[in-house]
């Protein structure tokens, strides 16, 4: 449809031009959900070598390839024993409807994995339906209380998230319903601005004391996770472990958000692929790789992504955006509804404005009712099973009887960038850019 003589600027492409026009029209920066949409070096840029003469594969469907993982057994009396290494990332009630939170809990529980609260407290729906529930401890402390803390199966101290390392939470007034406002002790309808720093500790030395306090409050029963947005990952992981973390969660810049400035999402943080080797190096140098567990999130979509993250050294992964898609986000059945609000199925990212046609990122009772928690839970369980079976397929092909036996040696890279970030050789070579070899 475009005249071939017309030439689009690479610098001022259509999205850039539209952004300038929008800013000039509205006078406010763009706030949206989802995660980074720019193209980034990612798991797609890695391949598994598979087994042949020099490695023995395992028989698919006959020889076992186990998937279980224990999280947080360094200090906690009751570490988490998960059947699969794919967990549900922290997403708040407020950002998501109560039905969506319940569905995530149902799905995760059905396949023996964990789900996670978010910046808004713990709802009875998700606690009731989640066999393993991780309770986030965030700078805002919205809804934080010791009763729920004691009900949790693990505690995740959140320093940041991949979509916005260095940024606080955000929830616009359209989603601050009476129930959400009540749980967060905020006036209904306001644009919520959450703090980006914790109110009662600063720096790793304080964090060590904070972790001891949380252990004391919960009688040393629960694993303590520390979650960081991927940026200076090597140092952040070392400091988190020094502060006493049982589990470190590293969220790459492809990780999702319910509401963040577009400029933040696209321009802060590092790709998941670049973060994992930094985290693993930090743990290995401390002699704690596989002892302090590493959970990786940010752009996990397939069993291949799961397997590649684990081969690079993760003990488990977490999914957020992919879980919402599994629930029905961006489904073409709502094509007309997406169009009516100026979006399209496959492109919708306005999680901040509460008009989600799929009824997931909303507090509107009519929209939220579109999502049946039981059916949603079934879809999540299906999706988690597929991710796991795909990862097992690849692991068996590499001769591994457990997903955690996957290793960097099983991987090669397709691009120089991915090879340098993931610290695996370019396919067909021994060259790892940046390794000095």
């Amino acid at each position, binding site marked *: 449809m475009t005249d071939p003589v017309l030439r689009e600027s690479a610098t001022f492409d259509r999205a850039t031009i539209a952004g300038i026009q929008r800013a000039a029209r509205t006078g406010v920066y763009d706030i949206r959900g989802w995660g980074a949409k720019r193209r980034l070096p990612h798991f797609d840029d890695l391949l598994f070598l598979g087994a042949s003469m020099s490695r023995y594969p395992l028989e698919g469907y006959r020889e076992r390839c186990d998937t279980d993982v224990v999280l947080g057994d360094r200090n906690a009396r009751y570490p988490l024993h998960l059947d699969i290494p794919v967990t549900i990332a922290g997403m708040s009630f407020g950002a998501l409807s109560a039905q969506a939170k319940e569905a995530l809990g149902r799905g995760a529980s059905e396949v023996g994995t964990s789900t996670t609260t978010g910046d808004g407290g713990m709802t009875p729906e998700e606690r009731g339906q989640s066999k393993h529930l991780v309770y986030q401890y965030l700078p805002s402390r919205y809804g934080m*209380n*010791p009763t729920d803390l004691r009900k949790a199966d693990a505690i995740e101290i959140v320093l940041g998230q991949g979509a916005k390392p260095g940024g606080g939470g955000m929830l616009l007034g359209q989603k601050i319903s009476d129930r959400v406002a009540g749980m*967060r002790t*905020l*006036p209904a309808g306001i644009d919520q601005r959450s703090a980006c720093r914790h*109110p009662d500790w600063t720096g790793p030395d304080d964090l060590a004391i904070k972790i001891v306090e949380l252990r*004391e409050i919960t009688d040393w029963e629960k694993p303590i996770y520390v979650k960081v947005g991927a940026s200076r990952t090597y140092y952040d992981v070392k400091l988190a472990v020094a502060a006493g973390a049982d589990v470190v969660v590293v969220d790459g810049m492809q990780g999702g958000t319910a509401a963040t400035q577009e400029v933040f999402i696209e321009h802060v943080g590092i790709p998941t692929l670049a973060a994992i080797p930094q985290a693993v190096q930090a743990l290995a140098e401390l002699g704690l790789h596989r002892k302090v567990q590493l959970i990786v999130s940010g752009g996990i979509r397939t069993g291949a992504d799961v397997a590649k993250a684990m081969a690079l050294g993760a003990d488990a992964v977490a999914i957020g955006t992919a879980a919402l898609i599994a629930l029905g986000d961006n489904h073409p059945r709502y094509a007309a509804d997406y169009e009516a609000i100026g979006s399209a199925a496959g492109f919708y990212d306005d999680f901040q404005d509460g008009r989600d046609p799929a009824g997931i990122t909303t507090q509107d009772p009519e929209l939220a009712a579109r999502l049946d928690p039981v059916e949603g839970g079934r879809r999540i369980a299906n999706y988690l099973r597929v991710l796991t079976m795909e990862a097992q397929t690849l692991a068996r092909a590499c001769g591994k009887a457990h997903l955690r036996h996957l290793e960097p040696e099983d991987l090669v890279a397709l691009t120089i960038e991915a090879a340098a970030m993931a610290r695996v050789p370019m396919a067909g070579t021994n060259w790892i850019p940046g390794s000095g070899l």
Partner: protein
Amino acid sequence: MAALSPAENTAATVTATTIDLATSSVRELNAELHAPSAPHYEVLNPRGAHALAAGLHHPVTVDIRGHAGYYCAGMNDGATVTVHGNASTGVAENMMSGSVRVRGDASQSAGATGHGGLLVIEGSASMRCGISMKGIDIVVGGDIGPMSAFMAQAGRLVVCGDAGDGLGDSIYEARVYVRGKVGALGADCVEKPLREEHRAELAELLTAAGLGQGGSVDLGGFRRFGSARQLYHFTAHNSASY
């Protein structure tokens, strides 16, 4: 610490179960307080240890005879804790109910994110007192440091002395009362009229805190501060305020 006077020698000490941290660990202390076998406890030789009496959820009384470290009485839910000394960072952080009293001074972030209960600091409190408070009442006999009541969402903060700069920055619906000098107010924090209902709640809080003098509460000089509610919604025209 000065020697205890008879007036300070609360009823709790008469029948209290003593836990001496010279010979017991903080873990042993908190484990006992989480499943209490007695109604009153006295903690000796705290020596500035962290997380003393953290996570209490039974209506016990605890007298800590000396200085406390970080997060003393953190997340208290129903207990009555008295620190007969100073308290470090985050005393009574995220308190839900009950009361915590510091006879001396408190360090940073006293009462941070507290949802309920009463925190009394008879001396002064450092910066970020009442940060992100969510319903707690805090009464400070002396001064408070800068950036206090930052993003304070609900509850009351009463300061009998002075308040540092940045008071009530980005405050939501908490109410702040200060008797002494007030430094520069934070973004969206303004002085508001002290009406009769505010005088009543102020008198009630001072009385509850035991800071009334001779049974009568002097409200002279108190001023009220709260949110102008101008930053409750994002607009480009507020960019200079952030």
